[in-house]
């Protein structure tokens, strides 16, 4: 199955991409983060558990246990600073 992953703000810059479509076998947000951390030092550093970032699944805030299914839109971003 394929999912869409979006990155915003500092993470978009660090990862050098705003979005990507990627294969992902059914799992959770936690499993996706683990997969991304294995891409290399920038990824493992920015997405380490002690970093402050948020994950949304289909535009709703999620946590590590949130399930991901085919076609979902996952967004990973730093704490928000609007207003």
């Amino acid at each position, binding site marked *: 199955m394929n999912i869409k992953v*979006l990155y*915003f*703000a*500092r993470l*978009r810059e660090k990862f050098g991409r705003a979005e990507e479509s990627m294969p992902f076998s059914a799992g959770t947000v936690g499993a996706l983060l683990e997969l991304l951390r294995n891409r290399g030092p920038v990824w493992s550093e920015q997405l380490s558990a002690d970093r*402050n970032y948020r994950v*949304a699944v289909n*535009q709703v*805030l999620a946590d590590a246990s949130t399930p991901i299914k085919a076609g979902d*839109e996952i*967004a990973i*971003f*730093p*704490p*928000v*600073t*609007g*207003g």
Partner: protein
Amino acid sequence: MKITVQETDFDAATEIAELRANHSRTGAIASFIGLVRDHNDGDAVTAMTLEHYPAMSAKVLHDIVEQAMQRWQIEDVTVIHRTGRLVLGDQIVFVAVAAAHRHDAFLACELIMDFLKTAAPFWKKEQTAQGERWVESRATDEDARLSWLDSSDISAR
């Protein structure tokens, strides 16, 4: 209810006039305008770029306004958040709440701003004399959000 995310500027008086139209029960309008100010964390700021998550930002703003409308007696609400490049003195955000009574209008307006600051997916990158930098989120904004969670509907300050 009017909620928009836009690059263009807004005119507070036009927005307030629209908010008032067709609401003869409205006795109070509390509003808020956020502006690009000249200093942040000690450095001079000359401009900023506001990025957002388009599919999510308006959705979150809607959810926030719904929470406020369930909590107090509110006639109508307008929220406008700008994105893109903004310079010193530019308007960033506008929230206006129309209600029969002023206390409801004030509380709803402040709650919407406090929740927007901590939940709506917008990010600021500032241009300072020291170069560009992403704005850091503030613990005081999170404290402001939390202050609404354990208070009754009409409570002392």
